[in-house]
């Protein structure tokens, strides 16, 4: 590797990480605090183009699009965090169970993973969300119950591989208890995989939340959710109100990309292959 002057890969990654975390936490907090102002309607200021006082403009109800976008993103981030956490836990448990509890359990879990992966994501999401009565719980349930599969596969494969590795076998031969081996030798190896997997679930979760809300199967229309904002803006695009879709859309893309970047950074920092660059 080439030597860099002062900022090596690791520092750069750390800075990126800090920026991403700061931005996302900032949006989440700002959105929660500003929730009230996102709901205010004021017909004296409807359909304003972006200006200094309304950076993102206003919509046909005179709602401040900046406040709505930020609150919408914060709702998305919270849903993303909840859903990603729940799916990661499911993935972790099922992945480990499949790898350690014998052939039959493995077969069942693998079958379950295949089953869920076999159904188009968005379809299953809509079904679950609709069955759970739409709204916040519907979306969180829907996203968590559909997104754990790939991570579960990764974990299962990792554990299977670890089980066969020499140092684990040696530990077994030395008479260490199963629990001790799992805790001392396997877990440290699994955690980076798990964390990265968890963070990389966020963008998926957020995008899927936005899309089912856009399609009308998620959050209710008076909520300032990104999906709601984007689907409403469709009606007004034709009249030239470009700001209703552009800024919220950009912000959504930015958020998703930052989460993706965050995952990449974490991977670089924890993966033994790249951690010392």
């Amino acid at each position, binding site marked *: 590797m080439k030597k860099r002057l002062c900022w090596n890969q690791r520092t750069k990654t750390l800075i990126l990480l800090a920026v991403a975390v700061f931005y996302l936490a900032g949006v989440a907090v700002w959105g929660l605090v500003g929730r009230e102002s996102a709901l205010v309607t004021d017909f004296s200021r409807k359909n304003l183009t972006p200006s200094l006082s309304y950076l993102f403009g206003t919509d046909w109800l005179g709602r401040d699009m900046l406040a709505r976008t930020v609150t919408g993103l914060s709702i998305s981030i919270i849903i993303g965090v909840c859903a990603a956490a729940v799916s990661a836990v499911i993935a972790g448990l099922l992945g480990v169970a499949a790898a350690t509890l014998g052939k039959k359990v493995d077969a069942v879990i693998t079958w379950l993973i295949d089953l869920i992966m076999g159904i188009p994501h968005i379809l299953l999401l809509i079904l679950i969300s609709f069955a759970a009565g739409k709204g916040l719980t519907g979306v969180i349930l829907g996203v968590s119950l559909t997104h754990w599969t790939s991570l579960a596969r990764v974990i299962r494969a990792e554990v299977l591989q670890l089980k066969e590795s020499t140092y684990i076998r040696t530990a077994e031969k030395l008479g260490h208890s199963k629990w001790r081996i799992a805790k001392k030798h396997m877990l440290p190896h699994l955690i980076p995989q798990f964390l990265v997997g968890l963070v990389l679930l966020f963008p998926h979760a957020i995008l899927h939340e936005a899309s089912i809300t856009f399609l009308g199967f998620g959050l209710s229309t*008076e909520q300032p959710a990104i999906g709601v904002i984007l689907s409403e803006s469709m009606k007004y*695009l034709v009249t030239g109100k470009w700001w209703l879709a552009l800024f919220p859309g950009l912000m959504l893309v930015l958020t998703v990309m930052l989460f993706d970047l965050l995952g990449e950074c974490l991977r670089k920092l924890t993966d033994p292959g790249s951690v010392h660059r």
Partner: protein
Amino acid sequence: MKKKMLHTFGAVAAAVIMLASCGNPSTETQATSAAGTAGAGTTAVQTEAAGTAEGKDSVIVTMPTTSEPESGFDPAYGWGAGEHVHEPLIQSTLTVTTKDLKIEKDLATDYQMSEDGLTWTVKIRDGVMFTDGEKLTASDVAFTYNNVKEKSTVNDFTMLKEAVAVDDTTVEFHMEKPYSIWPYTMAIVGIVPEHAYDESYGQHPIGSGRYIMKQWDKGQQVIFEANPDYYGEQPKMKKVTVLFMEEEAALAAAQAGQVDVAHTAASYSDLSLDGYSLFSVASVDNRGFNLPATKAEEKDGLLVGNDFTSDPAVRKAINIGINREEMIQNVLNGHGTPAYSICDKMPWYNPDSEVSYDPEAAVKLLEEAGWTAGSDGIREKDGVRAEMTLMFSSGDSVRQALAEDTANQLKALGISVKTEGVGWDVAYDRAQSEPLVWGWGAHTPMELYNIYHSKAETGLAEYSPYANETVDRYMDQALETDLEGSYGLWQKAQWDGATGVTQDGDIPWIWLCNVDHLYFVRDGLTVADQKIHPHGHGWSIVNNVDEWDWK
């Protein structure tokens, strides 16, 4: 920016057309200004090219996708006689409603109600032909009515016992109970041929009306052609094409010059389109919300009533505390009229329903009733906070805006209103205990009955808990008397000088506005005078398409 986007659209559109029309460049002079958006676009372009030369006699009209009759053009499944009433065009009806919503005869040459109100005898025109060449007789009429009674799920025919053809030109309707407004029902039921009726009738209807349905491309368009054997005046428009599309697509189609009449919404009304002008039709397509008039209690697991809105003073204060004119400016860009009842401008409307905006009086009403402002400015009485949730159907931007504006206006009175978008799957049940923004307005006084008359099973009105014996009695009487006499009784049901459903009465529903129906109409096309449109932004506009004219 707007201009620039339009230019971009135009450029793309032009490119599409160039590609589409390189096969036969000679016929496409008109089409260069038109864009091809959807499959329907192509047909529109062809039609237009055909009708340009001299004295155009065809017209292309857009309608919302919800206007396409799912089960076909069959009155038994809601064609004409459904949730949104209109003239069925393909079939003819016994009577028609006039511009002032009175009754005129069409197929019927005479109709009479018996003394007890239980039999209607209708004489029909002789010599009317169905478009398949068969004669229309009284037995077709009887068949039609017995058929809709048996099958219709979208309109109420329970008052009819049976229809009987006495001879070729006389039909008798035997009623279960007196129903003085039967002529309004006769105005929406298209007569179908008994010999050519089966389950698939709606897909290829045969009638005796002004138009013949020539072609129906589901999800896209319906093409009508004038019926050459029509017994009345020959339609001036020989060909009517109806395209089904959303408002934004209709606007794009008009911007591209593809359609002659494009339905549109208030939010698009400030756009100016070259070659088109905005055409506004007054309507009784009202929007309003219910205020449950009973105390909250649980009935069969369903919450019925509302402690806050059950106080008549609250309902009165809300009714005069809302500035309808301002709301119409805010929400409809001025394209609407204030509504004070479910039937403004109809012959059965009672003008005593009208109120004027008076916030001071509203506050006084609340104060006198004991609703005093708490620390946060929201009123309270005996531990009940002056707050309610105002629901609207999700995705309806006009109803959402009305709900939001209501919330803003009522806040000034010290009433806290939360808005919530709900689906129709839960809206009916929830409206039993919370206000919901509704849209009503039909060409029959029966709507008053549906809204305000109590039901035998519950003792309360169907859509929002309310009951008043006097109001019920007037409406029962109105159905038992003759048609002319019934108008006065319907008016008395609204307000008789002592009680009713108006501001001075119980005011269980607040009416906000009648939404004007807006269209972009191509210059040169004269759309004939419209009757006041009922609820539904669809077929009403073409009720008299046969009288439209190109200059």
